[in-house]
């Protein structure tokens, strides 16, 4: 599905500084960008370029030192921590490089967790979990624990967990970083399929060739700044 003209995310002159001992580290330095609804954006850059910091800021896991971040016209920088939690629960879904599934829970319980946090009624949860798990084609593994799943299956489970609350934006931090090449491609294909259903995706990666194959737009960061921003050739 093609991106719409409607803005999903607007980042306005965002700076994020960290104090590391006596040194001030500028992880994001006056970053501005617009992401339209339905776009599949890849944030590229080497380690320490600020791409994960930007993703965390868009996710509402972190707050900017200055500037504004709008998600569907709501400024995250001005939200209370309670509202930021709601933003993470309802507006965005997040997948991580290390999957971050809770090891003592089954796949079904892991996927159900965001529904518990969002206080979704119990009788609705089962259907929502089945829907999300079917979307990532893991229905046969519902009762398995993460240790009983392959890396690709774990990342698909993490994707199902990110999608179960029906967010409008999916944020992925190096989703193929822990996977072999073939499995990584499978996950990327799944992400593109999800994007084609209308979901905005912002993905952090350092794998430029793969990003070029799957994403619509690539933003290159270096030293906390955006150095290039353009559609895939």
């Amino acid at each position: 599905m093609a991106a719409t003209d409607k803005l999903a995310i607007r980042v306005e002159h965002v700076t994020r500084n960290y104090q590391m001992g006596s040194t001030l580290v500028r992880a994001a330095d006056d970053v501005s960008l617009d992401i339209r609804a339905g776009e599949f954006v890849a944030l590229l850059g080497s380690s320490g370029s600020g791409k994960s910091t930007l993703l965390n800021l868009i996710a509402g896991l972190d707050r900017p030192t200055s500037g504004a971040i709008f998600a569907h016209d709501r400024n995250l920088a001005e939200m209370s921590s309670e509202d930021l939690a709601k933003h993470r629960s309802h507006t965005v879904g997040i997948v991580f490089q290390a999957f971050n599934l809770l090891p003592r829970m089954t796949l079904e319980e892991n996927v159900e967790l965001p529904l518990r946090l969002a206080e979704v009624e119990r009788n609705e949860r089962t259907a929502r979990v089945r829907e999300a798990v079917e979307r990532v084609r893991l229905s046969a593994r519902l009762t398995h624990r993460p240790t009983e799943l392959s890396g690709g299956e774990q990342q698909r489970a993490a994707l199902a967990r990110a999608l179960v609350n029906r967010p409008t934006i999916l944020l992925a931090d190096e989703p193929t970083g822990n996977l072999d090449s073939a499995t990584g491609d499978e996950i990327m294909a799944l992400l593109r399929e999800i994007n084609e259903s209308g979901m905005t995706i912002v993905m952090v990666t350092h794998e430029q060739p793969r990003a070029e194959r799957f994403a619509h737009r690539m933003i290159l960061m270096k030293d906390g700044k955006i150095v290039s921003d353009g559609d895939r050739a």
Partner: protein
Amino acid sequence: MKVRDLAELAGRNLREAVLRNSLTTLGIAVGVASLVAMLSLGVGLQNLASERLSRTGLFDAVFVTPRANFEGFGGPRQANPAAAVTAQPLDEDARSKIAALANVGEVYPEIRFPTEIHYEGNPYPTIVAGVPASARGDGAFDGMKGAFFSGPSADEAILQIDLARQLSSQTDSLLGKEIVLRYAERQPLPADSGGGKSAGGGFSIVPREEKLRIIGIVETEPAAGFGGFGRGRLLIPLQVAETLRAAQSNDLRDLLRDTPTRRTYESLTVRVKGTSNVKAVEDAIKQMGFGAFSLLDASRNLSIVFAVFDLFLGIFGSLALVVASLGIINTLVMAILERRREIGVLKALGAADRDVRRLFFVEAGVMGTLGGIFGVFIGWLIGRAINFGTNVYLSRQNLPAIKVTAVPWWMVAAAIAFSIAVSLAAGIYPASRAARLDPVEALRYE
């Protein structure tokens, strides 16, 4: 997050580190058990003392004396509104009027007089005391050898152990034996006796003898009198004591009255139905022109003593619980370190700080609840063991069994509530620390 989901997640987390959490819960249980054992001992001893004291009849009794027109010991008396009432003789009429008052169960005179008893040809001077039939239920006669009086007019005697030892080194052999009671009987004189200057009336003192059968020996002192003054060593039925018309110390006062042949009592004991009515009966008797007092104040002081006793036992018992609360803090802080990444994941998935805080609170609360319930059970068992040990000792001393510990329902509820409260208080710091965790930092944690 909803309460049920919180409880499920907390339960899952507690099961995850089952050994550590069980040990922490056991620590709380030991603390609660120590508290319950201490308090149950305090409450049990208080119950025991209250029961024993109420059975003595001292706390539902009002002691009535004729109002004397002279100062007693301890200097001038304080102003008393009842002092304006005319002093009345404490005679049979007064006894009937007092008996007719509301909530009065029984009125009987204090009869004790000096005597000389003869046993196997030897004289033994002692004091006789009349014992009402209602004294049968008093704790003082528990564990006595032999039996209580067979009837109110039976010519029977119960010996206090000191007197029994004087009579025979084999005190048990005295049961069923006869003694002769020699006493001074008061006999009224004709109105014209005494010569020209006589005010008329009066009485003479005549020596008398009465045979009594020894039916019991008691080790306590049921007729000790106040402060042990005039201890009655030979106990006889009150009705028998009254019919003997033995001369008593107030007879000289009777002789000086206008009606010397009309007998008065030195004091009356009024048994009131329920301790709550004692004050009203006491006031009514004072209004009738008699002196009256009760031991309610002593009872109140006893309650204060036990309240302080319970307080100190509670403080000592709580110390273990305070130590256990440090265990909760330690366990939960360790859990935060271990579950740092999980807390980050929860926050990334939409958990608010409040949810994380409540999750740790529920975990502390669950440990407190389980520890409280288990601790009450252990405390109850300790109480039973104390009771058992005490009664084994008492039975070896040939004493009746008693209950020195008690775990009433209010204590069960209070101990569990206290355990939960202490656990939640201990959970405040770890829960706040977990809630404040930076999710980005937490997710980076390996």
